[in-house]
């Protein structure tokens, strides 16, 4: 009988040791992954190539590069969108700010935007998007157009670089007929 009690006590002891040995650890609190700080740059030039040819050239007074997001925020920028055909006039742009999303190839311009189209017509607005994949410039804020045969305002625009085609929403203009 003494032997039986001794065996049972030994088994309980092993279970206790095992329990203590395998008891779950308290859950650890994961530390937040800190984004790398943006890289600050000044006097930046960004070039975009398409088919081996220079397509877009952007210059900015300063830039913040978010490498994890593949985004660049640009300040006081001006740029040039080169024509498909060599020798053809470019489109020039100016804006207070710009945000270039690398993956989407989307450039968002904002603040005092001025676009000079290949034939000299000017577009003035506060926000524009330039989709480099589609070669499309568009905006949904009021835009003023001047410098060509027509002068006026519209409530939005689309401009396709490839065929030099501009669509304006609700235009009000002056022109010589």
């Amino acid at each position, binding site marked *: 009988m003494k032997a039986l009690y001794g065996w049972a006590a030994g088994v309980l002891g092993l279970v206790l040791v095992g329990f203590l040995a395998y008891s779950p650890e308290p859950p650890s609190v994961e530390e937040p992954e800190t984004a790398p700080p943006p890289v600050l740059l000044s006097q930046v030039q960004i070039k975009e190539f398409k088919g081996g040819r220079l397509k877009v050239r952007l210059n900015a007074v300063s830039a913040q590069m978010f490498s994890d997001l593949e985004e660049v925020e640009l300040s006081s920028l001006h740029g040039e969108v080169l024509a498909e055909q060599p020798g053809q006039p470019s489109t020039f742009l100016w804006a207070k700010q710009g945000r270039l999303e690398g993956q989407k190839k989307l450039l968002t311009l904002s603040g005092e935007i001025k676009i000079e189209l290949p034939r000299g017509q000017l577009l003035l607005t506060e926000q524009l998007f330039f989709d480099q994949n589609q070669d499309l410039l568009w905006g949904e804020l009021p835009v003023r157009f001047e410098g060509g*045969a027509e002068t*006026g305002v519209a409530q939005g625009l689309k401009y396709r670089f490839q065929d030099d*085609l501009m669509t304006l*929403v609700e235009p*009000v*203009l*002056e*022109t010589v*007929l």
Partner: protein
Amino acid sequence: MKLWPLWLGLLCCVPLTALEAQEKAQLKGQSMVVNQKKRSLVIERQVVAHQPLRDIHLKADRLELLRDASTDEVNYLAIDGKSEVTQKDQFAQFDHGVYERRLGLATLTGHLVAGNQEMKIEGHQLRYDLNQKTGSITALPGEKVRFWFNRQAPNDPAQAHPVEGQASEVLVYESLKKMVLQGSVEVVDQFDQSKVKAERMVVFLDSTNQLDELTASGGVDMAQPGRVSSSDRAVLDYGPQLITLLGNAKVTQTGEGDVEGEKIEMHMDVKQGFLTGKRSTPLRMEIPLK
């Protein structure tokens, strides 16, 4: 005379160098497409245009223009949809309008109605030479051009009565204040319900665009209340209210018998009867014995 408010032509004829800010037109619509390569511009949906200097207004569904690449002048202008152009009291309604600078030609088609307070013409197509200031209005096959002119009432110059009718074609000579109506022309004067039929008629308008004179030729038949006439030619002068029949003239007037001759002059008012013919023109009257 300014018979036709050809806004497209009036504006496009002005040399670009002579244009000032006031010469510009104001346009608006729901959308506009500018094709810089083609030098084209298209405005669509609820298109409204106004030329302040000339006080010309346009409404249309679509307006398209093409410019010369070097001069920026408008070479071609098209207007579509239910369109209306007005300039003061003048108006033109149509479905499709085209102006071509090279030809100096404006063409308005569709259901065309054009005119002013004193006259109106309805047809299918107007072709107008802006250099010559001449035009023609035609109808669809099997249809006729309809027209309305006002004329002074003989007893009250302040009153106007319509003279209306139809013809296969109407030719407009704006500088001459003249129109030629041709092809089975029929005219009804609503003042006294008198009717004139002829192959061709020439209409002259006065300074107020009211009917001044009407010359009919080619198998002229005239039916007035109490009088029937026929001749090779007839001149209806709305000023002195006289009718002159020329060539194989014949008049049958109720109670007055028949009158025949190479030239017969008579009052428009049947009750006032005949005037004498020229002395050199023998006049034959048959007076029925009562």
